[in-house]
């Protein structure tokens, strides 16, 4: 088991990265948390709002880190933080199940996948990335997009309703009965992704070439 671990090209700076990221994230979020707590104590805002603003701060900071940090590993870890913040938002919206799924799939699966991708492509050796020259343009587009969509969303006269908690039974019925057919299609999507990733990434010398095969088999 240990031998296997040693063979994985794990960049040595990873532990330092984790500590460093944690420190930076803490340093950024702590003041926000303190302000929010103060507001809560003075009864300016409710507990739910504290959670919302905290989660929002985590998401935005994480997202900014994911797109701005020059180090590719840092950026990926920053994405994880943002996506865990999204899980908090799901909790506020009454979807415990989704929050759970978000943590499991993003915190677990996708992150490991992305980090493995980084290591297999040796990005760990040279983690600095240069961004394209179109950065100012991209910045403008991003701001414009967020601004226009945000203003339109605030402008809309949404009905004043309360958050409803999605009961597990309802979700189960909807997912497995009403949306049975899309569920089956989604399973095909997963199969395609699985087979596709293997078929594309497999080395060519494993190719099942009949002539080579006959000579080598046994």
């Amino acid at each position: 088991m240990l031998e296997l671990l040693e063979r994985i090209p794990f960049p040595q700076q990873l532990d330092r990265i984790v500590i460093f990221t944690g420190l930076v994230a803490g340093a950024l979020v702590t003041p926000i948390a303190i302000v929010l707590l103060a507001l809560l104590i003075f009864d300016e805002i409710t507990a739910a709002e504290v959670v919302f603003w905290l989660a929002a701060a985590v998401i935005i900071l994480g997202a900014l880190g994911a797109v701005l940090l020059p180090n590719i590993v840092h950026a990926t870890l920053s994405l994880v933080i943002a996506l865990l913040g999204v899980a908090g938002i799901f909790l506020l919206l009454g979807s415990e199940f989704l929050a759970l799924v978000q943590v499991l799939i993003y915190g677990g699966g996708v992150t490991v996948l992305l980090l493995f991708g980084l290591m297999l492509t040796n990005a760990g050796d040279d983690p600095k990335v240069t961004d394209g020259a179109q950065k100012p343009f991209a910045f403008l587009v991003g701001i414009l997009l967020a601004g226009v969509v945000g203003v339109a969303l605030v402008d809309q006269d949404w009905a004043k309703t309360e958050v409803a908690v999605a009961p597990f039974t309802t979700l189960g019925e909807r997912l497995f009965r009403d949306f049975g057919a899309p569920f089956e299609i989604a399973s095909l999507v997963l199969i395609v992704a699985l087979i596709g990733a293997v078929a594309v990434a497999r080395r060519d010398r494993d190719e099942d070439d009949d002539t080579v095969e006959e000579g080598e088999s046994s």
Partner: protein
Amino acid sequence: MNFEYALLIPEFILAGAAAVVLLADAFRRDLGISRRLIPAIAALGALAAGIASLFYADRSTDFAGLIGVDDYTLFFRVLFTVTVLVVILGSLEFVERNIRHQGEFYALLLVSTIGAIYMAGARELLTAYISIELLSFSLYVAVSLAKDDRRSGEAGLKYVLLGGVASAMLLYGLSLIYGAAGTTSYEGIAAALGDSAVQGSPVLLIGLAFLVGGLGFKASAVPFHMWTPDAYEGAPLPVTAYIAATSKAATFALLLRLFGTGLLPVQDDWQWMLATLSVATMVTGNLIALVQTNIKRLLAYSSIGQVGFMLMAVTTVSDASGSALLLHLAGYLVTNLAVFIAVIAVYNRIGSERIEDFRGLAETQPYLALVITTGLFSLSGMPLLAGFVTKFFIFQAAAEEGFLWLSGVAVIMSTVSLYYYLKVIRMMYVVAPAEGEEGRWRPSLIAYGVTGVLFIGIFVVGLWAAPVLEVADDASAVLFG
């Protein structure tokens, strides 16, 4: 709700055939199966699915309000199963030489056909979205499966990254429309949006813009077409043919059903977007095609130009333009496949995609030169051929709906397209073959058969469109009738 899974039998057959193909390929040596058997299984599966779908003729029922099993779906079930059958049969030799992992290749083609069919059949946004992803995922992989061709992986990478961005945009649009309408079923959306309070609101407009952008990407409409030439050039030829045929047609099937039913009440909000896209696509696609030297890139830009004409039909959505679009899709599929299968047969011989290397084809292989010429003439809209009739109906329907200027642009661009098609034709007929390549050669028997059938098909649609138009009318009546 009606949970009759039997309604989905044609797709079960396709999925089953894909599974059998995969297993047969994996255990080929243990079972002692010949390599030739794998495409045979795939072709049989496609054929069986096509025949099975005919049992659902004249039915207007649905699966749980998610998937309509009506004449519209039937039309595309038959169209897509025939397309995949043609691609499988027409590319046997090519696949054997130039594709890694043949079992996976055929299985992906079959599975992606399921996605394409449900894009046409979906009556609900979630089903439509997941079907789009099924088709796209299969294509991302299929594009990257070429053997010994570095362009293939690169094309796959660009396709998957841009496709992911487009999916995200599409989803954001869908989420805003869901928010505005409160439901995801097309009928529910139509009912909710009929209420004038939401119409023209910025949220809805932005949602529609994202939706049009995302779907425009899948249909490769300008300015969302960047991936198309690269994916077309990098992909193995049969995959290029398949993207040009099924992926386009499926996107338009989805567009027509969504915009023709669910979003019809807010027509004023999206009509100008589609009209703009249509003009931009027609003009850009046809003009850039003029300078291409690679036959795949030429066909890519020509197909972008064609997308402009199809967008025109969705823009002017009406009963007439609906059936005109279906007829055009059928004619376009037949024509495009004829050209591509013939080009594949030529490629098998000369091993090059450069238009230059097609020189003197009329002398060395007059039959394939004739098929390519007929197909290209049909694409440009020459009389007697499929392209003329189908385009005529679209232009007429657009003019009737008050979009005469759009028809005018389309006619001009059709004429422009003739120029670059003629470049290819000139290379084949006027220029002499290269030194040492003067001898006659013959394509495989199956290439003769497939191109022959498609060749006749071009003339059938061109000269005797009435029966096809009748079927298209029935299908379109489901939406507008």
